[in-house]
């Protein structure tokens, strides 16, 4: 059975636990955001090139 009280009370070293999880969350979200933004940037570059009529023969 879930015990929220004991789960929320992280004991005398709660700060170490919370900072660990926050650090991992921050870097993980950073990786995800960076990957998404980079993907969007490259797709936009290709779309811009295509709009200017620059494309590969096989794409025509």
């Amino acid at each position, binding site marked *: 059975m*879930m*015990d*929220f009280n004991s*789960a929320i009370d*992280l*004991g*005398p*070293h*709660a700060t*170490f*636990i919370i*900072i*660990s*999880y926050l*650090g*991992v969350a921050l*870097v*993980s979200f*950073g*990786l*995800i955001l960076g*990957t*998404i933004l*980079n*993907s969007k940037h*490259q*797709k936009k*570059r*290709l779309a*811009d*090139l295509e709009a*200017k009529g*620059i*494309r*590969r023969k096989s794409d025509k």
Partner: protein
Amino acid sequence: MKKYSPPKNINKSQTVKEMNWFDKLAHPGQFLKWSKYLILPLSLITIALFGIGLWFAFFNSPEDYQMGDTVRIMYIHVPNAWLSQFVYMAMAVSAIGTLVWRHPMADVSMKVAAPLGAAFTALALFTGSLWGRPTWGTYWEWDGRMTATLILLFMYLGLVALWRSFDDQLRAAKLIAVLTLVGAINIPIIKFSVDWWNTLHQPSIISAEGLSMPASIYTPLLVMMLAFTFLFVTLHLVGMRTEILKRKADALIRKSVSQTGNKGVGK
């Protein structure tokens, strides 16, 4: 500007229908086609695994009889430590693909994996340090496991820097593949360091004899390991797709510049 030429092992006269499964896997255009169907399922599996893993970690697992609640740091430390080595081994396999088979996707895989591996290694050191202070009384100890992992982080950062310093990505891939394989010697050193030398670090929790912990603790650990592994696989896949698009755009810009002399194209 980075030079990019088509993979040498792809026969240009060969049609897609004539390709076997391996050629289809290797062909960047085909990779873009089939891999797009994997992104959503992989993302959903990753989110679900993190949800389940975090629920277990905070609401459905006991504190350790020795370490107390700090055992919960293990649920993020061990997965990152596992990935720090797994990603490097994936890069080493890709390096073999680059050097032996000149697999067109192998250098793309190597390049995209390096910054991810660096991030997971940094997180393993960060969480390990925060776990070490309350359990060992110190943030850092220059023992075999921690020192070898720090060296691994520097190796990742060096490889990322090398990729960025080369204009010609195909030449870079060959050099970096050799360096990656040489650096792979560090992985067994990290793995067995706790057996070879005296250390504060506990022995491997997963061994040939099985898991050295009760089910209530290894269940959240295994779920979180799966969650982080799926996170890596998803980010790696999307990153590879992006790198292919980048090389495609770079090639188009080079072609346009060589034809028109317009250096402002695509900037």
